[in-house]
């Protein structure tokens, strides 16, 4: 009796634990979903004070500075 219960428990435990492999602690990156820990977002800093649109525009402009074709033609 005791033995059987213990055996069953052991089996159940073993099977139950089988799910504890690589818990994908960070899943695949999904656009627009914050997956991080506590950290201020870049547009929440002192420079943009939460204005996400302004931040995005600033970045977009800045990005084009890496494209000399924008200046050359």
């Amino acid at each position, binding site marked *: 009796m005791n033995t059987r219960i213990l*055996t069953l*428990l*052991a089996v159940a*435990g073993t099977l139950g634990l*089988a799910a*504890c*492999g690589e818990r994908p602690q960070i899943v695949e990156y999904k656009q627009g979903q914050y997956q991080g820990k506590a950290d201020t977002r870049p547009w929440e800093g002192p420079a943009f004070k939460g204005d996400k649109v302004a931040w995005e525009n600033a970045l977009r402009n800045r990005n084009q500075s890496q494209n000399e074709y924008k200046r050359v033609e």
Partner: protein
Amino acid sequence: MTTSLFKARAGSDTWPWLFCLLAVCCALAVARPALAEEPAAVARSAETGAAAQQKRQQEQPLNNAPVWREVRSGDAHFTTVRGPETGVLIQSEGQTWRALRNGPVTLYGGVLLLAVIAAILAFYKIKGPLTLHDAPSGRMIERFNRFERIVHWGTAGTFLILAITGLAILFGKHVIVPIFGHTLFGYLLIVGKNVHNYVGPVFLGFTLVMIVMWARDNLWHNCDAEWIRKGGGLATGEHVPSGRFNFGEKTWFWIGVTVLGLTVAGSGLVLDFPNFGQVRQTMQTFNLIHVIGALVLLMLSLGHIYMGTIGAHGAYDSMKTGYVDETWARTHHELWYKEVKAGKPGQSPGHAPAAREVAP
């Protein structure tokens, strides 16, 4: 399945064999993809290199396919930045290591570890501890002298520290983080990792001394054959005569302490001293050896700890005080007992065991 599992565990120190087998399987699993990879790698290397790119460039300007293939070869290229393997652009072995470590090693390692604990508990519940059939005589004889005890407890203590910190490194983020949270666990593990790294070499030292100290007593003895035949009498409760160490202990000594202990400690050294220029690939391999070896060792040690504590009455005292009751000695290690009684010297390095009267 369950019954066969339990049958296999008939002998107190034999069932770990099963895990050795599993370890081999794991090792094979590691090796298999590598073997499969090999021919492809060779085929690729034939076409890489500057010459191929040069040729390609002439034939088709701006076709850099040979260069891109070379990127993934893992070969070192030129760079002015100094440091370990800075010349390697992409090392793809890291991905394999990650897959193995985070996958089967963590998963099956964890499962088996828990299973072993469960099995031992079950065994204890069902069979109970080994007890003495006769009453203690009250006469004590020395089984382990002070030096042996220091070495044993040194090894055991460092082992436990390493085991706990090592388990935290491998399973901590799955088990401890959900309870303690990142911050506390992080700080604990900073300490833990440093303890692990500095205690590791100490463990190796103790292990080496232990091997030298007890190697002689663990050599093959004719009586071992009978012990094996009778499965140590664990299941039947029959007492099989054995020398200073019975075959179960010898198995633990050779497989656990010597082979696995040295493997784990040695591979640990490779990881602990990266300043000798090991490349990542080396460290990945040794990390897997280290982790698998350590897990198996840990599982074996659980058996040993069980037998040394609650599994067999009197065993713990023998290592704690160094003395055992004559009855205990006769029951578990009859041949050794006879030798001691006969005053045959050389049972342990440097010290002849001596009888001592101790109040029961």
